[in-house]
Structure formats: C-alpha cells, structure tokens
C-alpha cells in the first residue's frame, strides 16, 4: 500500500476523492496527497482512531496539519505498549518513492484513552468530518461496543459495509437523520474502489462533504430511511 500504488488504484477505480485513514496514524497522508495532486485526485488526510470503548472512528480533514494535530493528541493517549514487529509487522510511513521514512514503535492497534463522544467532538471542533466506521461490523463498531448508537455523538455519517441492509440497523440508532455511507476501507491495493459513496457538491472539500451528507440525511428522514 505505497502512495504510488494507492493513487494508481484510485485512478483505475475512477475515484474522485479518497482519504488516507491509517490506524491511529496520519503521516502517510501527505505523500499520497502529493502524488494525487499530480493527477487531479483529491486526497484528504485523517485517521481511523480507536476509542477507549474500542470503537473505530474515521476522522477526515482537508489539511494534513490538522490531521497531524489529532495524531499528536491520540498518540499521547495510547498506552505505552511497544509494537511487536514479529507479530503485527512494521508500522511504517512510506514516501512518494516507496522509501520507508520511519517506523512507529508504539503499538497502534490499541485504544486511545478518549471516549467516542469526545473524539467526535474534537474532530468537529477542528473542522473535520467524523464518521463511525463499519457500524454493521460485529467487531470494533459503535453498535458492537455500545449496543446502540447514542444520540449525543456528533457524527456526520455512519459507515456500513453492506449498504443494502441499513434498514436492519434502524432499531439501534437513536438519532434520526445521520446518513449512511460506504467506502473501500482498503487494507490492500485491490480493495481500493470496492465500495464508494457518490456525493454532489460545488467544492470537493470537507465543508462540501459535510453539507452533502447533511442533505443526504435530511432526505433519508423524508423517505423514511433514517
């Protein structure tokens, strides 16, 4: 999953916007963004963070600087447990030429000491997009961990793996009007483009995305989907 491969696969899959959301880490984003810019692919910076409750939450920003700020905060909240490279593999940052920039020593497959509510609030307060990851997954999802989605969490969207079955999730969602989205959640190059969400917006940035998602949510209420 080097920046070069990611951008190439995204172009092949005819994606217009992608977000780089490594687990509790954002440093790969700028390299992907640099290569994306050369071919007109929009690359947003972010991470998939793991909250105290072991919920996965997507944080997406226009600017890498903002994402990097989140990473600093999250890093300090991760237990100081070292990565076992033999077991988990290396946690690397890779540049545009496929060179390894650095390897992270602290175990990133871990929970940061922050609640899902506080994490979502931070993301929104810093101009980002907060999306609950794979809510229909039996593991690491807000529904698997809490049993339901509380109304007081500031989420722009709920990501699902199976967009055709969102009706089954309604009983578990306390607030109406949060739109459902689906993404590749690519862990390997061939995953890229396997799922996508189409949004219409004037400007393809986080504000544009947020507004498009809001409209989608409102439409869902009117059509009874949310």
């Amino acid at each position, binding site marked *: 999953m080097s920046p070069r491969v990611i951008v190439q696969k995204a172009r092949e899959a005819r994606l217009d916007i992608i977000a780089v959301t490594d687990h509790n880490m954002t440093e790969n984003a700028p390299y992907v963004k640099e290569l994306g810019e050369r071919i007109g692919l929009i690359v947003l910076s972010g991470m998939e963070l*793991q909250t105290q*409750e*072991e919920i996965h939450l997507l944080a997406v920003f226009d600017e890498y600087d903002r994402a990097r700020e989140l990473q600093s905060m999250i890093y300090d909240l991760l*237990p100081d*447990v070292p990565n*076992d490279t033999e*077991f*988990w593999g290396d946690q690397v940052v890779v540049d545009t030429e496929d060179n390894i920039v650095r390897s992270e020593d602290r*175990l990133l497959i*871990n*929970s940061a000491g922050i609640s899902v509510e506080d994490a979502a609030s931070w993301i929104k307060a810093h101009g980002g997009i907060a999306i609950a990851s794979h809510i229909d997954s*039996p*593991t690491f999802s807000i529904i698997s961990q809490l049993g339901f989605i509380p109304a007081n969490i500031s989420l722009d969207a709920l990501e699902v793996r199976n967009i055709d079955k969102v009706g089954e999730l309604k009983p578990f969602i306390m607030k109406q009007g949060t739109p459902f989205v689906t993404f590749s959640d690519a862990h390997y190059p061939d995953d890229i483009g396997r799922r996508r969400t189409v949004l219409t917006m004037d400007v393809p940035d986080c504000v544009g995305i947020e507004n498009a998602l809001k409209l989608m949510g409102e439409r869902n209420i009117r059509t009874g989907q949310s």
Partner: protein
Amino acid sequence: MTVKELAAALDLEVLTGNINLDRQVGSGYTSDLLSDVIANIGDDAVWITIQRHVNILGVAKLKEVSAIIIPRNLALEEAFLVKAREEGIAVLKGSPSAFELSALIYNELKRGRGVA
C-alpha cells in the same frame, strides 16, 4: 496447576485437543476489551471472555495466554477453532457466567497455592 487440571476441576470443555494442556495457569483475567487485555493481563493467564472472533487469538498469542475460556457455553464458530488450533492457542468453554467462572478459577488458584 495446569490447564488440563483446571479443566478437570471445573468441568470445562476443551475445544482444541492437546494444545497447551500442560501449560501452567499462573493467573486469570476477565475482560472483553482487547486493548485492556493487552495492557493488563498477567503471565500464564487464563483469559475469560465472551469475545469469540479471530482477533482475540492475536491478542492471546501476543500475551502468551495459557488458555481462553468462554463462559455460558456460548457457541463458537468452527473457523475460529480451526484458527485457534493453527495458532496453538487452547480454547475451553464452561456453562457458568464470566462472573462465576472468575470466582471459581480464582478459588482454584488460591487453593493450589495454599494461600488464605
């Protein structure tokens, strides 16, 4: 005491054959949050959890858990057990709840050490 002895004492069903049956049981930990287990489980521990997905095997291997013990006779998928055997991790199950199992195992360990 060994995993085998603990299983016999508490009538726990062994689901992974001979794997780790002779491992010593030095402690126990009861938690369903993987990050919590990674941070806090002790040595030669039996891990009592209702989580039954393959990710827990990674954690069990990382922390060299003596055995995973599933409460309430909860159903386990064959794919999970296959993976457990592949990874060399002992998986047991019993009918009591996690709370009850914790108490029973705690007492067994205390008895074994002859400590009040």
